[in-house]
């Protein structure tokens, strides 16, 4: 098994080998290849960020030639579609994107400096939750998952959402990550009825329950939640087995209702960092091109066909890394 921490940056020679011997234009997913003329491409040739931008390719063959000749440090393509991509002019639509970077997940059970198998798996769990909500609540189905090298991108191309503006995108992010504690008191014919989020098995309260469950089950004694002191954190850890079996009522009683409120408030405020919201609201973002090399960690940015079974250490490690190890 190749551990990501052992993966050092790819040398210029390795980049050349990757693009000339291993990479194939057919690895660029159809959802990009079929719209190649409408997208802006960007490249980083020396490892200092994508400063060669506004590139346009009329056909996949021209992109192929460019990558094989220039063997860039990193390759990107826009989530936006333009009539005139060379000038980023006449924007027509943009994919709705969610970027989960293992390095930036607010609660990680590993203690690695960068990314490792454990936090990459946690990123995968978060992405799976997001995909479920996109499908079940928002009714979106044209979703492509890409392993970025350090995490995952969920890219949505349903016509219903590609034209929406940043404000709507920001609301979608909040819904998906569970960034707000749902109401728990409702007025009903002049009386108040109380429903905690965990007794409502549908809609946003259910999304929130799932996200809180994920977070509580991934906390450790070093975790930091707003307004949650060490004693409360210890009690949460001690009783969280109840949540594993969905015994929320018991869990809340054990913790105490006021302290429970503090815990869910803390998690809601932290949840906004589950995805990089800046990426989701940016209508002209460029994202790492699937099939290209993430030279910093020597891994392939790869379209994921089955997120449940995908293992980046089997499917996204370029050949030269194995040869390097030998």
């Amino acid at each position, binding site marked *: 098994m190749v551990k990501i921490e052992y993966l050092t940056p790819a040398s210029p020679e390795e980049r050349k080998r990757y693009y000339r011997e291993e990479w194939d234009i057919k690895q660029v997913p159809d959802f990009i290849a079929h719209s190649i003329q409408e997208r802006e491409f960007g490249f980083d040739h020396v490892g200092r960020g994508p400063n060669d931008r506004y590139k346009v390719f009329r056909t996949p063959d021209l992109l192929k030639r460019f990558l094989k000749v220039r063997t860039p440090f990193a390759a990107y393509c826009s989530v936006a579609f333009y009539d005139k991509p060379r000038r980023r002019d006449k924007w027509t639509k943009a994919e709705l994107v969610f970027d989960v970077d293992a390095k*930036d997940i607010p609660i990680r059970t590993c203690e690695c400096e960068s990314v490792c198998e454990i936090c990459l798996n946690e990123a995968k769990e978060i992405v799976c939750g997001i995909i479920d909500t996109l499908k*079940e*609540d*928002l*009714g*979106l189905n044209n979703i492509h998952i890409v392993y970025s090298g350090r995490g995952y991108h969920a890219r949505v191309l349903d016509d*219903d*959402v590609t034209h*929406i*503006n940043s*404000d*709507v995108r*920001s*609301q*979608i*992010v*909040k*819904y998906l990550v569970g*960034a*707000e504690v*749902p109401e728990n008191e*409702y*007025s*009903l*014919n002049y009386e108040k*009825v109380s*429903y905690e989020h965990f*007794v*409502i*098995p*549908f*809609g*946003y309260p259910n999304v929130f329950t799932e996200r809180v469950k994920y977070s509580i089950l991934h906390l450790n004694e070093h975790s930091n939640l*707003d307004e949650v002191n060490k004693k409360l954190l210890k009690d949460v850890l001690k009783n969280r087995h109840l949540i594993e079996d969905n015994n929320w009522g018991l869990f809340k009683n054990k913790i105490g209702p006021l302290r429970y409120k503090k815990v869910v408030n803390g998690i809601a*405020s932290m949840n*906004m*960092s589950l995805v990089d*919201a*800046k990426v989701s*609201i940016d209508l002209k973002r460029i994202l790492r091109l699937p099939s290209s090399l993430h030279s910093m960690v020597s891994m392939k940015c790869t379209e994921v066909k089955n997120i449940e079974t995908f293992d980046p250490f089997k499917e996204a490690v370029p050949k030269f890394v194995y040869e390097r190890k030998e």
Partner: protein
Amino acid sequence: MVSVAFINPLSDEGEIIVRELGDFGRVLSDNDDLMQIVTGSRSQEISDDSFIPRNYIDLAIKRIEWFVKKKNDRNFDNNQYEFLFNTEILKFDVIAFYLLCQAVGVKYGPNSRESRVMVESQGKLIEYRLEKLPKNIREELVTNILNSLISSTHIKWTFFEDLISTKKLKLQDLILDQGEIILDKDDFLERFSHKIHGRKPGKMYEALIGDRIKELVMIKMVMQNTENYILKVGEKSDREIEPNPILLELADKISDVLATSVRSYGIGGSYSGSVKASALNPKAFPPCVKKVMEGMKSGGRNDAIIMFLTPFISYARLYPSVFSENITKQISDIDPSLLIVQNEVLPLIFGAAERCTPPLFEDQPQDKVNLNAKLGFGMHQNPDLKNEGETIWYTPMSCEKVKIHLPSLCKPDENCKKIGNPLSYYNMMIWKVKKEAKTESATDNTE
């Protein structure tokens, strides 16, 4: 039966009423029928002539005045405006609504304070009108209006894109399933009954959706349509010649009502109207600013200093009332020699940048250019009057934007609940500090 136009003036019934008005000049003439309805309204205060609108234009102004005073005036007396809830006023009210939209549309356009107040006032008026109706009539009316606004029984959430975009509705407020918004009870029971355990599904429907969400959706849709109508009027007036002087005069009157309200109560309960540019008081900074002032670690460091702190510090020092005045200014309008920028604003920002790990400008000196650009002085190393205007002086990020761009910064305290922008927090705290100082000095004087 109450007419749907009483709630939704943009309905077909409302349009018919407008078409029947005839001569536009009549809107200024005293109207006995209107005055009779007003004075005959139950509980209406008639002790002063100024409480009674004499014509359509007066009525239009009363609509706005009701909203502004209700929101801001502690001594507000609803009895002075009871006629607004008398269904007999329907025909006059619909005309007044159209007059207001057109006046705001031609003079101020859709992105103005006047437009926002008009739209919000319509929403509030609907809420209070519905409250005063008997339950069965209210339900029937809401259902009728919703049916006319939404043609399909299966409503995709994207149908409310405008409402979501303008934050009139939050996605979290709605019950979504497979991309559809669930409003109908049978639909709800069919989809979710089997999932609900230990609770009555019917009762859960009434609590979570029921009349509450239907009314919310209906009110927000009427508000959105009002906004769209103002936009349409604005676009049309851009293409056409001279707008009607009656509308321009009404527009000025609306503006006067709002200006009076700012002078008397401050805008919408905010404190920015009364705050003047003065030396900064770091103790009044909101928690997010205090956090950046302490220095950031590498992640989000650039955004925190350049995008967030620079606009905040510069506006807090030079133009704290930017949101209430709503007038675009350049720094030199307030600080002509840029001495305050050089001696007070930049040192604070550079100090925070220095405390970052690693120090921001040591690590990325090119970011000084970006900082300068956010102050409106273009892509140059230092602020210089000759470059001013090459870029825009960025206004401070709202709390909403901070949560998106710099989620780790947002650690709200009790005072944050009342505000939507860190600058409003600062203004509020400055106002409180001044108020406390005055009280203390008054106490000192009495001792």
